[in-house]
């Protein structure tokens, strides 16, 4: 493979990454009342968003105890569940959001 081609592809990749950096994130966090897991998850995801998506994210925290119908509509099984609605593809992150690496992977903020 020629040197120039590799350079080109790297450029392209960086360009793509730049584009991603401007993407708006719409996130929904479904929790179950004020359980320790719920509060932990809220705190964790807020921190991660502030660190990685500052100024370009929209995070809504929903208590499914209050709105059980949403649990059916959004196919929620586990709690807490974070749904990445935008950008696509849709992804569900379940747990108390303590595994930062996996969250960044799940939000496409980090490549494997």
């Amino acid at each position: 493979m020629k040197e120039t081609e590799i350079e080109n592809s790297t450029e392209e990749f960086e360009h793509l990454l730049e584009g991603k950096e401007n993407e708006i994130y719409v996130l929904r966090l479904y929790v179950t009342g004020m359980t320790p897991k719920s509060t932990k998850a809220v705190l964790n995801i807020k921190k991660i968003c502030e660190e990685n998506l500052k100024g370009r994210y929209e995070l809504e925290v929903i208590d499914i105890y209050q709105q059980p119908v949403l649990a059916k509509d959004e196919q929620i099984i586990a709690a807490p569940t974070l749904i990445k609605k935008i950008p696509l593809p849709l992804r569900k992150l379940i747990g108390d959001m303590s595994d930062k690496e996996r969250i960044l992977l799940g939000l496409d903020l980090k490549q494997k």
Partner: protein
Amino acid sequence: MVKAINNVESPEELQKCQTGIRGLDEITDGGLPKGRPTLVCGSAGCGKTLLAMEFLVRGAAQYNEPGVFVSFEESSEELVQNVASLGFDLNGLIAHKKMYLDQVRIERSEIEETGEYDLEGLFIRLNHAIDSIGANRVVLDTIESLYSGLANEGILRAELRRLFRWLKEKGVTAIVTGERGENTLTRHGLEEYVSDCVILLDNRVEGQISTRRLRIVKYRGSSHGTNEYPFLIDEQGISVLPITSLGLQHDVSTERISSGIPRLDIMLEGDGYYRGSSILISGTAGTGKSSIAATFANATCSRGERCLYFAFEESASQIIRNMHSIGIGLQPWLEQGLLSIHAVRPTVYGLEMHLVKMYKLINEFKPEVVIMDPVTNLISIGSETEVKSMLSRLIDFLKASHITALFTNLSHAGGAVSLEQTEFGISSLMDTWILLRDIELGGERNRGLYILKSRGMAHSNQIREFLLTDRGIDLVDVYAGPGGVLTGSARSAQEAQEKAAELVRRDETGRKKRELDRKKKALEVQITALRSEFEAVEEETNKLIQQEEIKEKVLAADRAGMMRLRKADADS
């Protein structure tokens, strides 16, 4: 064990929740444990989802118990479509708030696990579903799909345990389905959590014929049937058949019904078969078994009773045509709905399935008489013991329902098995056994009929010759004389000879009588002649006497005249 159950005086006896599924409530002794989860497990395609769905649909429609169906596999639309073919109107039930469908979709690729979690989302959905229609029944189908969607088995186990406890607290009767594992009932050991009632479904293929079976593996706190019961999925859903040899406690009838052949009735004490008895007609090919069966069917329908005819060899139209040729018209009975012919090849499905089908048809048609022609053909799909067990269950069921059953049995002449032996030893199950056999004599084959046994009646021990005429079946006496038993033309010849001899004898007597008559007449003539001679002589004699008297008178007159002339003394 039984004693222990009887002694328990528990005020809180286990309450049952009727499923409404035909047969299942009988083998579970009243239904599933109320307010508890039941595990239904089995391999793919054995009817788990359908059983669970029917439990809900029947609950909603028959017992006014609304139900929630949580599907982890099929979408709501698919479910509605799938069960619509079985006559269940899910959309209608949903509209009337009798049913709630929820599909739980888990895509592993969509999910990233980021720490501690629980399944509270599922609990909330379930709770919402139950409360929104006031459900008494819940189905989770197949909850094991969670294992493929979620990686953390530790959490799953704990949450499932919590789920089943929660369902119990909620007081709903639940069915949880699970896929069969290699050596375990379910792949992920659901039986660990659901310990009240476990039902195993199975779909086995033996000799290229598959049969669905159901078994209750355990049922805590309740008696239940322990056998494997065949079940059937048809247009009306599932029917489980608890057909077992339950015992011999059926009450019997003393009523008699005609066999349709007057002479045969006479052989059976003059009244025919007992109602509710089982009759076996056995014989080699072409001895007229089907004809006897059809005659019986005809007689049954003539009485205005119903007859269900299972044909394993001929089609319905063939039977009708053939029987028409011997003067038995079955067509009108078919049209009047008194006769129903079910022609099916034995190999269409397994033995148990035949039993299930028959059971169902009998329950639907409610016949007074059932005919199976020939029962021998079932051997092609089962072993001897299987066929015997199946037939004994069928006969028990028929007897309990007071249905008279006639079976035909094809025996093979010249084989190792003698005629007086049925292939599967079913003769012991039969009350009346009629044997048809060929009698070969003088270069021709004739049919002979005799009654081998007939329980509870003094039957004839005679062989009758059996004739198929265009007016039906006729039984005639065989010739039993010094020359042995004669049938057919030999019998006719013998009879003709005897008739001739009789004629000769009769002639002789006539001749003698006529001769005597003649003699008598001759004597009478003589008597008349003598009498007239006698009369003539008598007349002559009288005449002579008269003449003499006249002469005397004349002589006396003359003497007096002379005396007067002589003037003689009067005193001298």
